[in-house]
């Protein structure tokens, strides 16, 4: 099930934010979207998941045309996303947060068979089973990031769009994150993720797409991208990664 973006264009008040993006996200692979701030990465996510209408262009997934559908319909067709600022249900418990993701298509029912099985499975996967009755608002930063991941894994969607899922995570957490992505891939899933931490990008991606000023500046395997000096200068010259890692170019603000 591959995700195909074709000739996407979007402008906001005279500003061409997405300037002709054509992209094939390969099935059962992890594709990372990198690029300087303002390149249009989150906007692309918003377009693909139906939160913003695109001016021109189409989006196809598993052979279906998703252009113009609502976010709910797109989720039903198998694309689920996380948010950069997480957007957890802070007044609900960890378990309830996951339940809401699971129950989406039964939203009108009044009787729920305990979905405990799938909930337990997902929560154990991300290591939050012990905290299942804690309020989401009481979780630590890393725990929140994993809850956001748990939610989207619980939807069962075969294609995940993750917006900075690993930023700020430390060693052990990063390893768990890798594990989760790998398991998901092996289970037949497809991942498109936005990330600024280049270590993570290099380790987890099968393919990297470099977005700059609304268009694809480069795409290739991690080796190809990281050995390209022009990209290194362009990218490192504009921003310091989340880990504070600076590149061969001059340090950024």
């Amino acid at each position, binding site marked *: 099930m591959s995700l195909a973006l074709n000739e996407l264009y979007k402008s906001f008040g005279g500003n061409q934010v997405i300037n002709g993006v054509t992209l094939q996200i390969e099935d059962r692979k992890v594709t990372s979207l990198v690029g300087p701030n303002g390149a249009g990465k989150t906007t692309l996510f918003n377009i693909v998941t139906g*939160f913003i209408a695109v001016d021109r262009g189409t989006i196809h997934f598993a052979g279906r045309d998703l252009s113009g559908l609502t976010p709910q319909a797109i989720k039903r067709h198998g694309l689920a996303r996380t948010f950069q600022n997480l957007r957890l249900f802070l007044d609900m418990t960890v378990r309830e947060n996951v339940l809401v993701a699971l*129950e989406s298509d039964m939203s009108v029912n009044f009787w729920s068979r305990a979905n405990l099985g799938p909930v337990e499975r997902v929560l154990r996967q991300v290591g939050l089973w012990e905290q299942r009755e804690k309020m989401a608002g009481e979780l630590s930063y890393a725990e929140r990031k994993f809850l956001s991941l748990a939610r989207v894994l619980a939807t069962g969607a075969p294609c995940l769009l993750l917006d900075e899922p690993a930023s700020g995570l430390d060693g052990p957490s990063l390893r768990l994150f890798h594990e989760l992505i790998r398991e998901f891939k092996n289970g037949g899933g497809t991942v498109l993720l936005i990330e600024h931490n280049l270590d993570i990008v290099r380790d987890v991606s099968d393919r990297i797409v470099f977005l700059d000023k609304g268009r694809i500046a480069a795409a290739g395997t991690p080796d190809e991208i990281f050995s390209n000096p022009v990209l290194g200068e362009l990218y490192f010259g504009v921003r310091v990664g989340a880990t504070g890692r600076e590149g061969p170019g001059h340090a950024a603000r």
Partner: protein
Amino acid sequence: MLAYLLNLAILLGIAVILAWSLNVLIGFAGIFSVMHAVFYGVGAYVAAQFALHVSSDFVLSTMVAMIVTGALAFLVAVPVLRVREEYFVVAAIGFQMVASTIFITWESATGGMGGLTGIPPAKVFGFELISPAAYLVLTLVCALICVLALLAVVRSPFGRALKALRDDETAAIALGKHPVKLRLIATTIGGAMAAIGGSLYAFYVSFVNPESFTLDYSVLLMAMVIIGGAGSLLGPVLGALFITVFPALLNFLQVPSSVLGPVQQIVYGMMIVLLMLFMPEGLVSAGKLISRRRK
């Protein structure tokens, strides 16, 4: 004295049912409805007409009232829920004003200013309910049914979806929830539950007229939910208790009746302002705040 207390208890029971029904809109679905008296009124009028012309069986009358009111709530909500929050408030008030006028002018259905009188006593399993004590029992049974229904809603996927919607609508949408659909259903449920209160009122007082279903009463119901605490099950009970009992208290303290009305309103108004400033979750959150202080 006993008669007085019985009467107060029945009116309190009806108020609690109404406050709970409004809470489904305000507390669960985040819909700030200042027109709830309309659903109360429609429920009362429909039950009254049914009792007068078809059967005074309580269960039947109430079911018919619930269906009509629920349908009305749904129809009103369809266009009105599409507008933004701020507009909805004003639209609701507007709808209340229009409805009040209809209650007065649609004489054939509502009896106009004079209303409908001579409503026969409620019949339950063939028994006619005459004494206030009987009506109190009936009210309590209805209240019990309502609270069980609400508990079921809160614990259901529907209730969770509503809560998620209140918590973070964008995230809820991303997870597949349909805000409009969810709010429509919540409004229908709230409207139907208000009809229970309306039916109880019509049978107990045995007449209904437009004066009981005005904007003032909608505001009072809203005050009950807000003062008590929206979103919880206990909150509306506290709010209804406060607002029903308070005038009786003022009466007892022999506050002159000419200033009774305004003084009451001033107290409610002040409470709302102070609560919104310092305790926006209502009286019911007092326990939470105290335990937070202790930590």
